[in-house]
């Protein structure tokens, strides 16, 4: 599959995911967020375990380390974001965390991973960060 098709699929899947996640609040299930998230990760973990078992490859230390990095990143990000909403209004927390992450990842991509970003790309990232800030506020 081409990059554009994969990104379109990832965009639509991630958006659908947020629609389903948003239903948690709409159905007044906010108190059960940790339980919902546990189901999310448990299902992903079971499907992942089946895939790993079927592939039959030896476990790579780097895969464990990077998987742990992603897992801790997602869980820590979510829990600290929620903790922040207790102390600050959501219209500050969500734009700052979502837009901020976007800028930090772009800066690391540009200066650490040495990715080339053209003027249209830079303008797109800035517009994207502003869009997320406005939509999340």
């Amino acid at each position, binding site marked *: 599959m081409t990059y554009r098709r994969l990104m379109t699929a990832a965009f639509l899947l991630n958006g659908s995911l947020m629609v389903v996640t948003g239903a948690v609040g709409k159905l007044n299930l906010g108190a059960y967020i940790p339980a919902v*998230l546990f189901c999310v990760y448990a299902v992903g973990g079971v499907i992942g375990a089946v895939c790993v078992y079927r592939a039959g490859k030896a476990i790579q230390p780097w895969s464990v380390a990077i998987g742990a990095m992603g897992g801790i990143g997602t869980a820590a990000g979510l829990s600290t974001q929620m903790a922040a909403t207790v102390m600050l209004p959501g219209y500050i927390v969500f734009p700052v965390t979502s837009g901020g992450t976007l800028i930090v990842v772009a800066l690391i991509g540009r200066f650490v991973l040495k990715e080339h970003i053209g003027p249209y790309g830079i303008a797109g990232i800035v517009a994207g960060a502003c869009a997320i800030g406005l939509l999340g506020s």
Partner: protein
Amino acid sequence: MGYVYCIIAVTAYAVLGLSYKISDVKKCDQSQVNFFLFLFAGVIVLIWGLAKGITSAPGAAIILGVVDGAIVFVSVLVFRRAAALGRISTSWTILNLSLVIPVIASVALWREIPSARHYAGFALTLIAIILLGIDAGRSGE
């Protein structure tokens, strides 16, 4: 303290974003990375839930979690493949712009009235996608 939590959240999400690119650079097995991501996240969330005293949940919460879990798994796998073909800086931006979908859905499904900020956000999302599309085309992605 709230701002400190925001900084930690930004750092943690950035670590998640970079893990996609590093797994490609290190040529890791994507299934294994995915499995360990869900395993570690699941253990952390389990500890969090138990610390809050949550030992059960209504059926609707479990169904939502299961549906979400299946979508997350496919989404992570697809994005890993995309990030391997393109740049994480622009790919991560496009992925995060999908925030526009739940906002549109809340208007369509829950009859919420979008604010002027939301309209500006819709317009900027469109502009950002067009600009990133032009940039991707110029860099041969």
